């Protein structure tokens, strides 16, 4: 493999990894605050692509306007899922909420089939993203550069929100102790909804960029990316936002490099994520950046 080919693959890996990272953040945030795996997250990602698709195709509005609108709408969808499927079960046993999450996932998938139809749709990609750029001997789609830049920018914004703002402080407090946060005057329900809003919006950004990169959307498109990004979150250490991004990159780059270096294993591309998950769970169950604060009594 020449250096150029290698760089080409790495660029693709980073780009795919960025998309995984954006979705993985949503899993990790919700887990952090509710100790719940939001199985509907991959489907929220799928819904975002349909919102954007209809905005562009049916209402033929300018793409940037549609994207912003679709992102906000997806955030609201996240809140609706939280309020209906999870909030009503807040005091129920963990297993009930888990089942409810799986139910919410199936509901969204089937709603999409009913409303949008099961046949794949071609996602319109504005020329701006499609143009091929030549850097040295590698030629890449502009989008391949845009995706990581957007991801990193959003990650920094998110880290600022979580670590430097009052709402972020409330989120961190709620993630450790709902009851005491309440005693401090924190509106725990609002904080949880806000977390879903942010996580779903990030999934929407990931979804739209995903659809620009792989311009075919269908109701079950969120299932495999959803599972993989959950794995990315676990690899990075679930509950840790930076970890989710690291996990996303490891998964994205690893997957692309596997196929590039060992083309005979192409069929096992999706299995790579699960093998990695098993290895991590055996050797470092808390993930790469898992919580390690010692709590003294």
């Amino acid at each position, binding site marked *: 493999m020449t250096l150029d080919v290698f760089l080409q693959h790495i660029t693709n890996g980073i780009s795919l990894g960025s998309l995984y990272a954006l979705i993985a953040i949503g899993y990790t945030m919700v887990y952090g605050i509710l100790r719940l795996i939001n199985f509907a997250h991959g489907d929220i990602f799928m819904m975002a692509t349909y919102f954007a698709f209809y905005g562009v195709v049916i209402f033929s509005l300018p793409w940037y306007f549609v994207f912003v609108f679709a992102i906000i709408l997806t955030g609201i969808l996240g809140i609706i899922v939280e309020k209906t499927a999870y909030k009503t079960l807040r005091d129920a046993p963990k297993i009930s909420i888990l089942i409810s999450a799986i139910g919410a996932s199936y509901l969204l998938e089937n709603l999409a089939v009913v409303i949008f139809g099961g046949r794949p749709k071609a996602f319109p990609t504005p020329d701006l993203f499609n143009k091929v750029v030549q850097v040295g001997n590698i030629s890449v789609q502009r989008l391949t550069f845009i995706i990581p830049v957007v991801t990193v920018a959003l990650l920094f914004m998110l880290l600022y929100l979580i670590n430097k703002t*009052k709402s972020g*402080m*409330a989120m*961190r*407090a709620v*993630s*450790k*102790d709902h*009851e*005491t*946060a*309440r*005693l*401090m*005057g*924190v*509106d*725990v329900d609002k904080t949880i909804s806000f977390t879903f809003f942010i996580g779903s919006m990030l999934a929407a950004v990931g979804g739209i960029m995903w659809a620009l990169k792989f311009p075919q959307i269908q109701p079950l498109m969120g299932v495999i990316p959803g599972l993989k990004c959950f794995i990315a979150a676990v690899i990075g250490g679930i509950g840790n936002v930076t970890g989710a991004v690291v996990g996303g990159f490891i998964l994205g780059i690893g997957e692309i490099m596997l196929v590039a270096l060992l083309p005979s294993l192409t069929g096992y591309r999706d299995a790579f994520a699960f093998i990695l998950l098993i290895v991590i769970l055996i050797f470092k169950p808390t993930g790469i950046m898992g*919580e390690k*604060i*010692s*709590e*003294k*009594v």
Partner: protein
Amino acid sequence: MMLKIEDLIVSYGGIEALKGVSIEVEEGKIITLVGANGAGKSTTLRSIVGLVKPKSGKIIFEDKNLQNVKTQDLIKMGITLVPEGRRVFPNLSVLENLKLGAFVRKDEANIKSDLEWVYSLFPRLKERTWQLAGTLSGGEQQMLAVGRALMSRPRLMMMDEPSLGLAPLIVKEIFRIIKEVNKKGVTILLIEQNANAALHIADTGYVLETGNIALKGTGKELLSNDDVKKAYLGDSVHL
């Protein structure tokens, strides 16, 4: 009367933890509720802040029934709780924990001066401003929990077993602070197993026994009461 609890009954799945408890907390005083493990002390506090739903009875704070007030709104009314086991946020720095105490306040200038006050009460916390609360010792965490509660500028500060699991020297320090805070006009409702320490600083004390108020009196009276001595102060134990 600042806080009035009338005939409070709480049951956990058929077992009555409180069987009609009545307590009065006078503004500006230190009131203590002592009793053994399982007497219902924590349950009383948790009912006041709405973390436990009473079966019957009234909890009146300044003529307002607390029954329908949400836990998160109490702090705006001037009520704060230093919970049992400190419950500081281990993933937040000392400063952030203190800021969280002032979460609902908007008067930035006063928050700053209150922070200075808390730091002067607990110089140890100032040294550890940027440290994560989870890395503090038990005593420091208790100081932080008290400091965090003070950051809300409470008028009524309730404390659940602040001495639990702490070295005697630190317990002494915490009780000195409680008195100092009280002198600033903050009413204290203190729940303690360490009856001796609590009754020494209390204006009024209640002895809680298996869900009932067994005795009520001034701190001094209860300290010299033979039953209290026998049951809680350990004076009668001669081996």
